[in-house]
């Protein structure tokens, strides 16, 4: 009996069904087993688990179909192995290679009881409480199989878009209330309309997949786990604005995502119609996540921020009108087209409509991807989903929105997770950013974190504007003096932050003060500040 590792597409079947193959002339039931090939799962040993499963199946003479899916997003359970049984998909995790013989002995191919058995995957409360839209297929489909993508509801948005006028597609995006998921939260429909309204022989759609914020990984998970969703979103965007060429700019730190996208493109056939997409790799520059720096980088130059105007929507890549959106923004579009703008708009709170894939990171017990409508509180995410700290110590500070996001003390954990509530926080214009939430326990030194914020800005500043380039280095020096005991320098730090906020060209320099000042405001004791 041969053990085969193959994709659903090559077998011409959907992963949602039990499959049968012909062996020795008669049909034999073949169990489908999912072992994630998501980067986080790989980092936790998924390849060894997959190899052990194939080996053990061969040893027992059992035919299996091994699918390398994305992750369900429950990172603390990775590698999470799923078996397709008559009762649906049953999960086991976290599985180590040495657990595999025991799993076979326990009859896990039919959902047998085992200490690692988590029951039906969809009924795991952490997952069942979520409302996934953009991320609905991650971990469920075979990311390399277009057949599987279509079988799981993919392609419907693009199909509908093809029957619509460009302006009607833009209207749907506008009516959905979708805002840019990269952090700036700019209404997507306005951007789309501007590109549509700018006449040009050549326009571009650019996907910003330069997910540089620490604590964020939703782009990576989607590219690795459901790449066709992004491709579909870009093709819809192309129809809407009149572009035939798309670029996906992926950071070089994500080689597995690059491979997954290229594999999906190779298997896309005529799914995208006339629309062409090319994957381009970044090269380790954080600022290239800023849209104009990204365009410079795509053009083959140093990733230095451009002054705006002109807006990229009018003069972007190679001087052409360019729709540049974050990856999650584009991946949200197929669902909006498929189920209608109203269904998307119905979710969320205030002016933050729809869902956001939050990412629980850092010192958190149950870390992973939580896609929910806007409106939960930070506390609900940290404790109801996250289960508190991984170390077991009290959570002292949480940084929301990446390296340019505020440090929140426990007294602010009841803040509602929507764009406006975070922008209003302490009046510093903090944001939800890309939805990354990094938790720290009570061993954290916030003066050290503030220093790191300045240091990171000094390392990553593109150098074009002085407040960012010089200010960040001065910031490190001033914080060093404060930490050495010279608390009179705190006033200087505040003034420096004011200069950076007001005088910088882009968010790198103007928002670096946010983590610094929030740390100073809420944790003055860490700076030796006794003035309060």
């Amino acid at each position, binding site marked *: 009996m041969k053990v085969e590792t193959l994709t659903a597409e090559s077998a011409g079947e959907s992963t949602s069904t039990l499959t049968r193959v012909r062996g020795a002339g008669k049909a034999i039931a073949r169990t489908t087993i999912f072992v994630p090939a998501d*980067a*986080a799962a*790989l*980092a*936790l040993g998924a390849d060894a688990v997959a190899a052990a499963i194939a080996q053990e199946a061969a040893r027992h003479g059992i035919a299996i179909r091994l699918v390398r899916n994305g992750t369900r997003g429950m*990172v*603390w359970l*990775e590698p999470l192995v799923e078996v397709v049984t008559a009762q649906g998909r049953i999960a086991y995790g976290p599985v180590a290679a040495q657990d595999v013989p025991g799993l076979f002995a326990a009859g896990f191919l039919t959902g047998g009881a085992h200490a690692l058995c988590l029951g039906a995957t969809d009924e795991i409360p952490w997952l069942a409480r979520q409302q996934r839209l953009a991320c609905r297929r991650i971990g469920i489909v075979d990311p390399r199989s277009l057949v599987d993508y279509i079988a799981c509801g993919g392609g419907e948005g693009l199909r509908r878009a093809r029957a619509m006028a460009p302006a009607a597609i833009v209207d749907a995006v506008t009516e959905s209330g979708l805002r840019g998921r990269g952090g700036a939260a700019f209404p997507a429909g306005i951007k789309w309309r501007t590109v549509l309204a700018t006449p040009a022989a050549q326009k571009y759609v650019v996907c910003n997949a330069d*997910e*540089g*914020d*620490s*604590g*964020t*990984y939703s*782009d*990576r998970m989607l590219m690795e786990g459901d790449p066709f969703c992004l491709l579909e979103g870009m093709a819809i965007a192309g129809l809407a604005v009149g572009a035939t060429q798309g670029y996906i700019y992926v950071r*070089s*730190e*994500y*080689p597995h995502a690059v491979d997954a996208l290229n594999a999906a493109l190779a298997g896309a056939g005529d799914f995208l119609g006339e629309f062409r997409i090319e994957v*381009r*790799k*970044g*090269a*380790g*520059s*954080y600022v290239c996540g800023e849209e104009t720096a990204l365009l410079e*980088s*795509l*053009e*083959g*130059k*140093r*990733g*230095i921020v451009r002054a705006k105007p002109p807006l990229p929507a009018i003069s972007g890549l*190679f001087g052409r009108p360019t729709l540049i959106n974050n990856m999650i923004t584009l991946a949200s579009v197929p669902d909006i087209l498929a189920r209608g703008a109203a269904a998307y708009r119905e979710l969320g709170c205030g002016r933050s409509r729809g869902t956001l894939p939050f*990412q*629980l*990171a*850092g*010192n*958190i017990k149950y*870390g*992973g991807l939580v896609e929910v409508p806007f409106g939960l509180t930070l506390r609900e995410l940290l404790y109801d989903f996250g289960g508190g700290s*991984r*170390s077991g110590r009290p959570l002292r500070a949480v*940084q929301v929105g990446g*390296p340019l996001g505020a440090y929140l003390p426990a007294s602010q954990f009841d803040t509602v997770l929507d764009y406006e509530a975070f922008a209003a926080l302490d009046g510093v214009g903090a944001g939800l950013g890309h939805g*990354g939430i*990094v*938790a*720290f*326990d009570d061993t*954290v030194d916030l003066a050290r*974190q503030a220093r*790191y914020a300045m240091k*990171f800005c000094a*390392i*990553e500043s593109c150098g074009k504007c002085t407040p960012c380039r010089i200010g960040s280095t001065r910031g490190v020096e001033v914080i060093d003096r404060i930490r050495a005991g010279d608390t009179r320098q705190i006033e200087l730090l505040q003034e420096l932050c004011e200069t950076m906020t007001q005088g910088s060209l882009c968010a790198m320099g103007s928002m670096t003060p946010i983590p610094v000042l929030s740390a100073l405001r809420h944790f003055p004791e860490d700076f030796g500040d006794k003035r309060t």
Partner: protein
Amino acid sequence: MESLVTVAPIIEAHRLRPGALLPILHEVQDALGFIPPEAVALIARELNLSRAEVHGVISYYAHFRQIAPGRHVVRVCCAEACQAVGGEALAEHARTRLAGSDVTLEPVYCLGLCACGPSLQIDEITLHAQVTPEKFDALIEALEAAT
């Protein structure tokens, strides 16, 4: 100038692509481990750029190296999510352990493994999560033993 034998066909394959410089630099570094100085002049000439422009791009991006790395490259994540779970101690341990070694240590600012830090990447493709100093030593020993 042996490296130019490698570099020339790479340039040829990409030169007509819009924004060809980064794809060329990536492929050169993937093939040689770094971008040798003699490649700069050739790339500049073929893309009709000045040497300063090509050098400017190489030196701007942290990913591109101008000198050959060690036998292996280990990138340890130094960003906030990993800091929250001992990333700085791991980076410090790595510096001590790899001092004088032919394994190149580089910082990286986020590998997207933020729920299972501290994390690191070996030779750009192999990932490891929840890395303790002990686990780090075992990984390095395996690297060194493999030659």
